[in-house]
């Protein structure tokens, strides 16, 4: 396992992560403590709402709202650059022409064969 290499869809297992064994600096520890403090605060807010006996409505998750809003409103932040216009052309415009061309030539070839009488029906059961 010493030659385990990471990949985009395969992360490093915790037992092979050098941070687990060698990173003992106080900066790292303080950062971890800050993150734990934020997490604990959010937990507290959630638990207070969850266990409130007088609550009648759903608990709204602001992170979820932000995520949904960000995913559905990318348009104000869009800017036509080389990369974005290239992507738009490759995925939006080129397939139309390519598919038209492919289907048209295939259909024309089949039509020629049928007219000439050489068309062989695939998966034909009656012959």
């Amino acid at each position, binding site marked *: 396992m010493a030659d385990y290499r990471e*990949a985009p869809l395969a992360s490093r297992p915790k037992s092979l992560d050098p941070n687990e064994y060698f990173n003992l600096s106080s900066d790292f520890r303080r950062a971890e403590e800050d993150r734990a403090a934020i997490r604990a605060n959010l937990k507290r807010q959630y638990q207070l709402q969850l266990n409130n006996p007088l609550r009648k409505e759903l608990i709204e998750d602001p992170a979820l709202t932000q995520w949904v809003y*960000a995913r559905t409103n990318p*348009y104000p*932040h*869009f800017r036509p650059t080389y990369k974005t216009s290239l992507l738009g052309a490759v995925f939006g415009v080129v397939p139309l022409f390519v598919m038209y061309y492919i289907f048209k030539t295939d259909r024309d070839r089949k039509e020629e064969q049928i007219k000439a009488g050489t068309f062989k029906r695939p998966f034909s059961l009656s012959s």
Partner: protein
Amino acid sequence: MLPEQPVNMAGVVFRRWARALSNGNRSGISAFLLGNRAASGMTKDSLPGSYPKTPEERAAAAKKYNIRVEDYEPYPDRGEGFGDYPKLPERSQSERDPWYQWDHPDLRRNWGEPMHWDFDAYIRNRVDTSPSPVSWSSMSKQLFGFIGFMLLMFYLGEKFPSYQPVAPKQYPYNDLYLERGGDPDKQPEEVKHYEI
């Protein structure tokens, strides 16, 4: 959301409706019908905005998303539509600790935790980035090596077929002369299927 005292929901709705009618700059019937009621309790500046340029904007954005200022890293501003949404590590939910008490156990996520941009792709039913038993390159080589080898062998088998030698079927009685409607009085020609 802050912990609230018990509120009268109908009163809240009525107050919001009345405020909307007085605030909105639509006139008459359209204000009454369309209203100005927000669907959630979030304000405009707690929603995602545009890419942060100054350090103060970065700090405000980090606070908005409940992330440490040092940890907050927005997507690079290449006009791809991300705005100031944070760039979280590309790790799927199946990598998270299964034994920790998550608020939402099936999603392995706590309430209020910032969601990855591709969260819906990284749920446990979908893309999984957890460590593989052997390295990815080794797995790829094994799989594609096997598939490639099988394809090659099948192609060669088509090109150079090898089977038991066969010949046309041999029938007795002079190739079944009488059964095939031959004249019983005439003598058929001799058909020999052997050589000595």
